[in-house]
């Protein structure tokens, strides 16, 4: 099979670039959801109320222990049975976001545990409120180990977005498959999809590196 440059330029690339914002949206919103839900999940899991920590712990284990694709299908096909019908993209963001929230909660836990106990004790001795202790003392110090790990999850999430093609979200992979099915030419579409993912991954990794260096400079001087 010959590589068709004209087909690539005129048909594949424009369609891919049109799908790109969907992939980026899915990535960014899923990542934000993962972080925003992951932090409280970790705090709840550390709760001194046993029922709360056990229930949250089980939820995390359940989410971590089942394939993401199963969870996407579950939200997409099973929720409507209970009268909850969500648009495909939103379903996908929810599934990827919650799945990674469970994983990110472990990242937050590791970051928190890395802050010496003496820091909590100094905050108590200075009578800081629990809230101020978290936001001004503990969280800033837990960032250096957390940021690179979260950056890694950002890229992982980005690479998980093709799973959304299974529920017909028009992201890059879905469009690539569509072109293939339509024209019987898969090579160009799949290759371009791969290259686009590679380029964006590299850009994301570079951005994460910049944020990482910034945080380390800010916290360690």
């Amino acid at each position: 099979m010959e590589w068709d440059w004209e087909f690539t330029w005129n048909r594949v690339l424009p369609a891919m670039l049109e799908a790109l914002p969907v992939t980026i949206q899915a990535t960014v919103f899923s990542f934000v959801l993962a972080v925003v839900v992951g932090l409280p999940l970790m705090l709840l899991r550390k709760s001194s109320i046993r029922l709360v920590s056990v229930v949250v712990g089980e939820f995390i284990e359940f989410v971590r222990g089942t394939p993401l694709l199963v969870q996407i299908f579950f939200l997409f096909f099973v929720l409507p049975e209970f009268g909850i019908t969500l648009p495909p993209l939103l379903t996908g963001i929810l599934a990827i976001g919650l799945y990674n929230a469970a994983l990110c909660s472990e990242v937050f836990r590791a970051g928190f545990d890395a802050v010496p106990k003496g820091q909590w004790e100094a905050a108590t001795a200075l009578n800081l409120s629990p809230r101020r202790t978290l936001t001004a003392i503990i969280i800033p110090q837990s960032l250096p180990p957390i940021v690179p790990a979260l950056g890694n999850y950002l890229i992982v999430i980005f690479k998980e977005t093709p799973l959304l093609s299974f529920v017909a979200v028009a992201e890059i992979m879905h469009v690539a498959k569509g072109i293939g099915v339509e024209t019987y030419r898969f090579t160009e579409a799949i290759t371009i999809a791969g290259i686009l993912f590679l380029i964006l991954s590299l850009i994301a990794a570079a951005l994460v590196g910049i944020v990482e260096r910034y945080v380390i400079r800010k916290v360690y001087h």
Partner: protein
Amino acid sequence: MAPKITFDNVTKRYGDLTVLDGLNLEIEEGEVVSIIGPSGSGKTTVLRVLMTLEGIQEGVISLDGEPFTHVRKGDGFVPAKPAHIRKLRTKIGMVFQSFNLFPHMTTLQNCIEAPVQSLGLRKDEAVERARELLGMVGMAEKEDHYPSQLSGGQQQRVAIARALAMRPEILLFDEPTSALDPEMVGEVLSVIRTLAAEHSYTMLLVTHQMGFAREVSDRILFFESGKFVEQGHPDTFFSNPQHSRTKEFLAKVLEAN
């Protein structure tokens, strides 16, 4: 007048291990008390439960006669709510063996964080107070330095200024010189000496510096196996200990010195 600090039958256990065993202790306002004793005897725990870093299983700790760890209910006591503890805890400041400065804040930021956030001082008031205290501990020049840029002795002096910035009435020192290189012990002890001599703080020190304890304290407590074995005025305590365990301990540490 009620004692500044009262431990009433306080028991602290870690699992099966009893660290404080029905402890009774009264400390008067302005008194400087040193707690000495072998490692693992629980002397640090006395400070830690007073600072509420750890809970107690039995008994009540009171400040100025007011129950602190607990509140009265009917004839007995129930554990106090966090709000009650936070209200009374402002009376106590603590200096740790490992300094525990906030590494992401400068010297000055370390000293104004809590006064602004938990006492509600205006920032300029807090800065003024912090500078005064940093001057007192000889750290005025280093207000823009981060803890990692300071020596151990300097960090501990900043930690003392940070504790003082909260205007506590009670100061707890948990082996304040144990983590320091020998040549830095003196500078920290001289700050504590000044506090003991020239200010009215009620002070509770856990220390291995016998000479220092003898010099600054109004009273020495010898602690072993979760209990006070012997206590007394430093002059009589060191020259004429009564209990055989005290004699043994003092013989050992004084020989080592």
